[in-house]
């Protein structure tokens, strides 16, 4: 019988089967609380986008949506995770009707 590794096609099929087997094994051996949680590749606090979104939610609590547009200064505060600074800056701006 020919070794399946001798042709690229059968090697790819073996690779796909191995992928399915390893993934299945990973799921089967997942801890009870594990299947739904996941670790992001980058920490949330390192992501300006994620922090900006959460800061905007804080800022738009009592003001109109247009009030939550961050300024350059706000962005720096957001990047450093200081959501309250953005909320304060947003509420200081005049509300747009």
């Amino acid at each position, binding site marked *: 019988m020919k070794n399946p590794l*001798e042709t*690229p096609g059968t090697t*790819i099929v073996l*690779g*796909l089967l191995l*992928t399915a087997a390893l993934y299945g094994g*990973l799921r089967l051996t997942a801890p009870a609380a594990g299947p739904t949680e*996941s*670790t992001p590749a*980058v920490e949330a606090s390192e992501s300006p986008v994620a922090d900006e979104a959460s800061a905007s939610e804080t800022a738009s609590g009592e003001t109109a949506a247009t009030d939550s547009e961050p300024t350059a200064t706000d962005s720096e505060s957001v990047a450093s995770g200081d959501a309250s600074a953005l909320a304060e800056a947003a509420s200081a701006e005049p509300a747009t009707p």
Partner: protein
Amino acid sequence: MDGALLGEYVLLWLHLLFGFTWIGLLYYFNLVQIPSLKNLSPEAKAEVFKEGSIARTALLYFRWAAVGTVLVGLALLGHRGLLVQALTLSGPTNLRGLGVGCWLGIVMLFNVWAFIWPNQKKVVGIIPATAEEKAAAGRTAMLVSRTNFMLSIPMLFFMEAYSHGLN
């Protein structure tokens, strides 16, 4: 951008540069070079593998890109503080998957330096060998290279799946 985040980007960038070089050449060998060289005469093969040839240059980049990929990958995990968790296959599913990908990459690196390169040295004539020994070494190198080709498929799946929150 703080220093930690810059370090993360640079390490990830280097990991991808080394990784694309390594796996790209692995796929070139398995999909293009090995099938194409199969029907060549011993004299023609000697010409293909002579010093300074494309094949030898490709092998040079191949084996050192493998080293770079794994070392920078481990450094990246260490930088993130996830090295022990990943290598012990603990934590959430995507991190355990990343650990599986890491181990596959480490096994592939071992295969390159323990089996493929020593046998390739006989094939290309760096180590003197008879025609029979060259043929046997060539077959061993080919089968181990194909094994790496096979292992690269789940390895890439788990590496990519980690970034996208596999669960």
